[in-house]
């Protein structure tokens, strides 16, 4: 356990006001994401994964409970809580380069340094040569990759990723998965990773949290001890792997 990037969710209740009524989406959710850990959250569509992630990012005010970042309550978004949103959120009026260097420049990093950092991550997500493109000139998957680069370039203590690889082809997905693991190993950033894909969760994470449709209750938490780097074929073929996958899918179905 590291001393930065610890997320402690305590008795969290989240909800939206719809037509004057408040419905709780997530109720009494408690979980500790240790600093430097990699946790995946899976759950069926509409169970409140994005809502939870946004709340951790400081975008929603809890109806009850609290979320602590290293012991301090999260009251508003900060640069330490980086998010890759489920929707496209590149700034259309900024080029890929300007988008990616936006975070560092907001922190007061010089333009030259910010450009260097941005170029590194743009290359990492396979967009080298597209730095001068505006988002509308990129495909959907390319936009998503640029967004990932933008979040990474800001070197957050916690990285919240909402189905970041959902829109990508298998090859690109595999390449970005291994890049993400490299970055995680290098920077010890705390990663909370929302996905629909059980295999992806198993390949990447140390723990898998399965959320239920019933007010976002935690259904089950699975720990994976398999050391990194993992071998996909071996992982899914092994007894334990098959077992875990079945359990996860069973949990999702219930």
């Amino acid at each position: 356990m590291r001393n930065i990037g610890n997320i402690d969710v305590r008795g969290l209740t989240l909800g939206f006001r719809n037509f004057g009524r408040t419905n709780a989406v997530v109720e009494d959710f408690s979980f500790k994401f240790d600093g430097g850990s990699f946790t995946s959250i899976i759950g069926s569509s509409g169970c409140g994964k994005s809502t939870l992630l946004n709340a951790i990012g400081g975008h929603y005010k809890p109806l009850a409970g609290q979320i602590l970042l290293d012991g301090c309550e999260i009251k508003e978004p900060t640069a330490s809580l980086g998010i890759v949103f489920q929707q496209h959120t590149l700034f259309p009026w900024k080029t890929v380069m300007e988008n990616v260097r936006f975070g560092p420049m907001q922190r007061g990093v010089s333009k030259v340094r910010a450009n260097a950092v941005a170029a590194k991550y743009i290359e990492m997500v396979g967009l080298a040569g597209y730095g001068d493109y505006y988002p509308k000139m990129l495909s959907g998957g390319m936009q998503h990759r640029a967004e990932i680069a933008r979040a990474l370039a800001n070197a957050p203590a916690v990285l919240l990723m909402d189905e970041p690889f959902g829109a990508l082809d298998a090859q690109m997905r595999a390449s970005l998965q291994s890049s993400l693991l490299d970055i995680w190993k290098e920077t010890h950033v705390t990663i909370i990773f929302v996905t629909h894909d059980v295999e992806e969760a198993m390949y990447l994470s140390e723990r898998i949290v399965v959320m239920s449709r019933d007010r976002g209750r935690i259904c089950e938490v699975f720990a994976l001890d398999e050391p990194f780097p993992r071998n996909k074929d071996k992982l899914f073929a092994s007894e334990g792997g098959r077992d875990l996958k079945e359990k996860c899918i069973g949990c999702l179905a219930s």
Partner: protein
Amino acid sequence: MDEIMAGVTQRGQGQAVSAAPEGGHQGAPTRDRGAAWFLRIVRKPRWTALLASAASLVAGVGLWQWLTESHVHLILDFSNIPTPVAVFEAFRVVVVTNAFWRDIYWSMYRIIVAFGLATVVGVSAGIAMGYSAILRLVIAPYVEMLRPIPAIAWVPMAILVWPTTEESIISITFLGAVFPIVLNTWEGVRRVPRELVKAARSLGANRLNVLFHVVVPYAIPSITVGMALGMGGAWFALLAGEMISGRFGIGYFTWESYQLIQYGNIIVGMLTIGFLSSVSTGSIYYLKRKLVPWAE
């Protein structure tokens, strides 16, 4: 057929102040079609389009010549209207006079001052209303109350309030331009997607930087539409002001021509007004294309 449509809308774009904001891009698809052989096919209808419009104009001028020459008086009275040839003669005479250019200078000067002020005030007020709930409550009642009053209705008040007619004309022109700018800016700011603001906040931007990096850029297309509408309003109000209380200015020129029974100059004045107004609105659209290469 659609080539003809595209050609015509493009040319008409300058005057069509209330045309769709995307009006400036209607010609674009033709250019994108690329391949040279295809262009050759496309170019032919384009010539036809030009020809059709030219023929229509010639016919119109011919009709005008005939109506005025033969002094038709059928509900409309054409007997006092100068023929196109006479108008051209009047233009040739007037275009070399200092007075004509002085009038154009004064109108343009008033437009630039009043429209510049209206842009600064309108954009600031619109952003303030869109970004701060309190400022909206303070500003909105004035906008809602004053907006429906046509700029011309301000003429008597303006003359009473301002020390000179010059200032009153500029203030009327300002009022003609400012409301579309306020409303369109406000609208643009209000429609900023929450997700973009959230993304900027998560990247460490404070409220002020969100304003400059997200809210204002997002609103720029909408602001330019407001400016184009405001430019139309500005010319409308300017002409009213100049005709009623002006000294110098192209509106004054036109009205004076009527009073001095120089009927050819009336039409010269009208055409000049149309030309100037369309050039100034066109320059706003030009500015928009320069300013927002990312939008399409």
